[in-house]
């Protein structure tokens, strides 16, 4: 089982992830052509201007108004992206299989970041349950997606601490990671790919066509 989870499953997960992302991107380009306003209105300058104001913390009005969401969301996403790439255990496995290796996070930093991801996920869950306007638009799929996103971090943390049988927990961790990767192109987790484009389009419409700010 360990051999499968750390070998072929990783291949499958990454292939599905990359192929899925490429498919979604090509579909986006094709549909964008059909949606006649997109290519004429898209503007590099105004798209980037809008993207900048929404990717720098507190650069937009709502990011300042909802500062608690801003802080948690940025912490969550930054740690979520950096941990899998720079975790020592992952880098070791990658360089053992392929050769190259790169800088890694210290044990302390990794622990801190993993806990940050887990706490952020609890914040998102609490938000969904407690705020009426979020609860109103929350479905089972939203809870499942949150679970899929946080499971690799939770199981990775448990495996690292060796609270239970290591081999079992690490296999579960690898399966969770694979599931998350494969889920990204085909669920709302694809906002990872789409958000820069929707933001750039809105920035272009507001900036180039309407001469107004959208932050």
């Amino acid at each position, binding site marked *: 089982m360990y051999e499968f989870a750390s070998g072929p499953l990783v291949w499958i997960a990454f292939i599905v992830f990359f192929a899925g992302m490429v498919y979604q991107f090509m579909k986006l380009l094709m549909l*964008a052509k059909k949606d006649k306003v997109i290519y004429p209105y898209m503007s590099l300058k105004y798209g980037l201007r809008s993207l900048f104001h929404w990717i720098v913390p507190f650069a937009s009005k709502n990011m300042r108004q909802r500062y608690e969401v801003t802080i948690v969301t940025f912490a969550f996403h930054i740690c979520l992206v950096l941990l899998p790439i720079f975790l020592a255990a992952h880098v070791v496995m990658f360089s053992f299989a392929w050769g190259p290796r790169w800088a890694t996070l210290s044990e302390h930093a990794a622990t801190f970041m993993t806990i940050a991801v887990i706490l952020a996920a609890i914040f998102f869950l609490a938000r969904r349950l407690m705020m009426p306007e979020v*609860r109103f638009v929350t479905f089972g799929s939203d809870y499942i997606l949150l679970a899929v996103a946080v499971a690799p971090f939770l199981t990775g943390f448990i495996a690292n601490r060796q609270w239970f049988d290591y081999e079992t927990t690490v296999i579960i961790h690898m399966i969770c990671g694979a599931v998350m990767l494969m889920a990204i192109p085909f669920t709302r987790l694809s906002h990872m790919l789409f958000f820069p484009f929707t933001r750039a389009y*809105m920035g272009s419409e507001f900036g180039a066509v309407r001469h107004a700010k959208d932050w």
Partner: protein
Amino acid sequence: MGLPAAVNTTVSDPGIDEAAKSLTTQRIQEVIHRVIDKETAARFRTYLNTCVHCGLCSDACHWFLSNDRDPRFSPVGKVKQTLWEILRKKGKVDPYFLKDCSRIAQTECNVCRRCSMYCPFGIDIAYLLLVVRRICSECGMVPQFLQDTVNSHAVTFNQMWVKQDEWIDTLQWQEEDARSEITTARIPLDKEGAEVMYSVIAPEPKILAQLLGYIAQIMAVAKIDWTMPSFDGWDNSNMAMYSGDFETMGRVERAHYEAALKLKVRRIVMGECGHAFRGAAYDGPKWLAWKEPPVPLIHAVDFYHELITSGKIKIARKFEEPVTLQEPCNIVRGRGLGRKLREIVQATCADFRPPDPEFEHNYCCGAGGGVINCGPPWKTSRVTGNRVKAEQLAATGAHIVITPCHNCHSGIEDIISTYKLGQHVKFFSEILIQVMEIPDELKAQ
């Protein structure tokens, strides 16, 4: 869930109720599939798939805030009650569900786009609700008063069944009035090769004719070479844009530009209206597949700014009463005229109280987007959903609210009376007329 019983469902509107009686689920499904497959593409699909249901758009919407944060009025809440259901059922929805869609998309959203400024992904929620309006309109379901204006557009090319002789008579009457103030005031009709074609919305000749007299005075003092068309195309309003009848919208916009092309004018100046500007500068050209309008077009606010900064109009004295400002969605959020508007108000008014929030973040008046045009049946819902605007205006302590847009003018007039704010609304031209310097030789005796 713990929410009170659904609001506004007891309003009776024949345009919606009668349509529901003659629709079938099958017909609705056909229309939905046609609209979604043929008229939507990347934006529709991407917006719905990228929204992570975070609810951050809620704080943007005056409907949500004014209705005590009832989630059914949040932008994403409105999309949930309409499009999510439609997609979940693959279009197989019954007429009673469509009635709710019409109520929500047509009367409980002003498509003001404030939500797009609060969504981290820049999702165009107003666009999604406009697709719902399109579906309803294609099913023949539109609030009756709104549909009447659309019918008028289709038949007469103006919003209010104004006949050509009434139009010309009104202009001549206002020209006489203007001449009793300024000797050189004229409203030149069909003057070919003029520099400016001035266009207005149909309610002006119908119920606000004095504004036509005012612009004649302003043009005379500024010595502008202008004209107005005596024929169809003089009305720059476009209610079809808001009901979802895009074909009629396109015809109306084309007629407006063709009038300008026929008169060979250098540019079009539009009167103080927000949606008309949006239709002529943006929605119309988009539907007609023009990247830019064929004749340059500016809004009255832009024009007044030009007149004041160039010195063509000088300010003799400033308006003394404390004023505040409504920043119409379609010219500020919609065309970045916030700065220029602020400058002309400050140039003409001594005691200006800025609104908060301001500029692109200002709240919608609740009347635009076709909502006030849905008529008296929906008035209570509309003023209830705009309470935050009333609170905002009251907080400024001003006596006068300047509203450079007809819908804002009417909408704010309604909330002033509902919430007993004791204020009055004025178009900017009404202020300009009082403060502009009239050279002695032009003054009538």
